């Protein structure tokens, strides 16, 4: 019985933490929010140099050949430090999809470039102001050429390629598109968390390459986001912990009525509730990390459980962190809102909590909850 990370994995995590602290990742996140770029390219290049983009890429494709657990501990630190880079799009979603469903030829060509950052990937699914499903995708492919418009696609400023979820004669396909081709136009779309970039992608007969089986794309997409949900849940618990730590520090230092506000139960119990939610989320994320790394058939349930708990924890911790900071918490100057906004971005990016609860329950219905 060992529901914990190994000493090597913990070491990797503490090195990642030191690195992101030294690089002032949170400050850089604010820099992106206030600047004109949608990610911090300097930090992104440093992360590439550390090899994190190739963590899961097998050595034969010039990656580090490590496992999902190593990726989980990195994700927790990226979340804790609000790291403003296209890591999640390129690594949790795009790279994982190529590793899982790419042809040997594609892997040979693209995986080494994902390691070096020459290729950066993202995934495009949403088309309208409602949840994407296998029934409402309109972007269409015929003769390998894709036409249609995607909105809310993350990280396109950095991305060179995107996987497009589109409709084909056989059903839903996953297709790879080179974003630099002339049939594709990309526009930044302002979003609530300005420390990350969202884009629309308009495709007019853009050339594409099929990934995985034709017509089977929605199932593949679901399986990709099941994996990503686990990694995002680690970002969420990292962010929750950071927000809780901020609130605890402030509650110890801020005085009102002659005492630290942390000595009032209104604050104490709030912070205890945050701790409880975070502990549940963390334990569920650990279990999901195990399910992911061991390719357990329990992954869909474990991932949804981690996702729902981590979403709840981060939303609670980030909003109550603002509350604990009083008027200061509502200012642009304090970092509270950075966590609040990131928590919402992370709780919507691969589908809302309502959707993940639905996935959880329908999976339990199939497995007959024992």
């Amino acid at each position: 019985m060992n529901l914990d990370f190994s000493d090597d994995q913990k070491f990797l995590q503490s090195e990642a933490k030191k690195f992101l602290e030294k690089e002032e990742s949170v400050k850089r996140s604010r820099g992106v929010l206030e600047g004109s770029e949608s990610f911090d390219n300097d930090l992104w290049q440093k992360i590439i140099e550390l090899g994190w983009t190739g963590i899961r890429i097998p050595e034969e494709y010039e990656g580090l050949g490590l496992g999902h657990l190593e990726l989980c501990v990195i994700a927790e630190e990226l979340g804790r430090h609000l790291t403003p880079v296209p890591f999640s799009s390129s690594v949790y979603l795009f790279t994982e999809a190529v590793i899982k469903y790419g042809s040997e030829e594609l892997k040979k060509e693209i995986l080494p470039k994902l390691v070096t950052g020459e290729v950066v990937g993202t995934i495009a699914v949403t088309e309208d102001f409602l949840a994407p499903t296998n029934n409402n995708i309109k972007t269409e492919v015929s003769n390998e050429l894709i036409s249609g418009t995607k909105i809310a696609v993350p990280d396109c400023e950095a991305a060179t390629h995107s996987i497009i979820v589109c409709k084909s004669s056989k059903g839903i396909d996953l297709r790879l598109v080179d974003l630099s081709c002339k049939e594709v136009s990309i526009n930044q779309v302002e979003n609530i968390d300005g420390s990350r970039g969202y884009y629309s992608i308009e495709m007019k007969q853009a050339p594409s390459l099929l990934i995985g089986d034709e017509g089977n794309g929605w199932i593949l997409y679901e399986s990709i986001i099941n994996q990503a949900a686990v990694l995002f849940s680690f970002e969420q618990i990292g962010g929750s912990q950071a927000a809780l730590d901020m609130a605890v520090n402030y509650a110890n230092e801020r005085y009102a009525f002659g005492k630290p506000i942390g000595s009032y139960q209104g604050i104490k119990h709030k912070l205890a509730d945050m701790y409880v939610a975070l502990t549940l989320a963390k334990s569920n994320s650990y279990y999901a990390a195990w399910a992911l790394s061991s390719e357990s058939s329990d992954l869909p349930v474990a991932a949804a459980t981690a996702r729902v708990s981590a979403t709840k924890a981060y939303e609670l911790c980030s909003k109550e962190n603002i509350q604990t900071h009083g008027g200061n918490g509502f200012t642009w100057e304090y970092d509270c809102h950075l966590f609040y906004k990131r928590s919402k971005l992370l709780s919507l990016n691969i589908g809302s909590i309502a959707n993940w609860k639905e996935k959880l329950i329908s999976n339990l219905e199939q497995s007959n909850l024992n």
Partner: protein
Amino acid sequence: MDFKDTPEQAKFRKTCREWLEKNAKLKTGVEKNEFANIDFLQVAKDWQKKKYNAGWAMLHWPKEFGGIGASAIERIIWAEEESKFNVPKGIFEIGLGMAGPVMMEYATDEQKARYLPAMAEGKEIWCQLFSEPSAGSDVAGLRSKAIKDGDNWIINGQKVWTSGAHFSDYGILVVRHDPNLEKHKGMTFFFLDMKSPGIEVKPIKQITGGSSFNEVYFTDVVIPDSQRLGEVGDGWKVAITTLMNERLAVGDANGADVEDAFRWAKKQDDSGEPLINNKSVRSSIADWYCEANGLKNTKLRTMSALSRGETPGPEASITKIVSANKLQNIGAFGMDSLDMAGMLKTDDPEIQSFQNAWLGAPGLRIAGGTDEILKNIIAERVLGLPQDARADKGMPYKDIPSGNS
């Protein structure tokens, strides 16, 4: 990360499992109350004795007291396996979980030899006499008195909410020996024979209609000084040992859980459709599933630390708050799902389990540290926030305001 037992743990689990299979029935899902209308106390005692004879009763205790010297992890493995079987619960937990460790730490060797094996065997049942009418959360506010009289102490006063006092043979007791001292310093700890002259036990009827706890009155009850546990004035220190154990012993709330809610929702018809098709029901069940598994996985993290011989982190402190509230919500869900009929008493074991959950959960949110006190503990001891300002700090006990109770 892995969920495999080590070869030794697997072997141990198999031994537990084999013994349990021979001696008890596996749970099937919907448990009929097999123990209704029978002498539950006797059934529980028989089961305890069976366990004791095989070494399982207090398996982490040394052989001389009836254990097998099991490690913390083996103890958890046993508990995991036992929980899969339908066995009588609720009689011995307080004695074994709270009186046991205190006796082990503070009693003399002769006392241990005399009392511990009988406690483990279930021959003698123990209760915990801490709470008083004016001292619950603030148990150090207690006022029952002990006055030294030669080699004896004379006890006067009242305890309340004493679970199992009506069938207990012995009790652990904390009382005030000097009201002139600061409240935490003026207390002393004893164990005593519940059949001593001057003890009167009066059952209290609970909101469930049953009576598992009692008022206990003491009128000139004599306790020999040899039954003092710890030094005179160390009562609080000794009590804290048991309260720490209590937090582990009380832990998970037994009763209707997410599996039961799920099974129910799948078959129960609500205007021709199973409830599980209702969005809000799906959402609630998802929440309970996340909580239940969050607790289960938290326990696994604790076990992982124990397994490596490390001290577990504070994560287990969330167990009772989460599980007691979940129990209350699941109970309410089951009853609500029956609409007007949810209020009706019935023989249906599933409906009963929701009603029992709903009726019992309020007690669990109070017993062994209320939700509010547990949140204070998390805030202060885990998160490091300042202690609550105390109105009674440094005052002699007798000068502390105590309201009307």
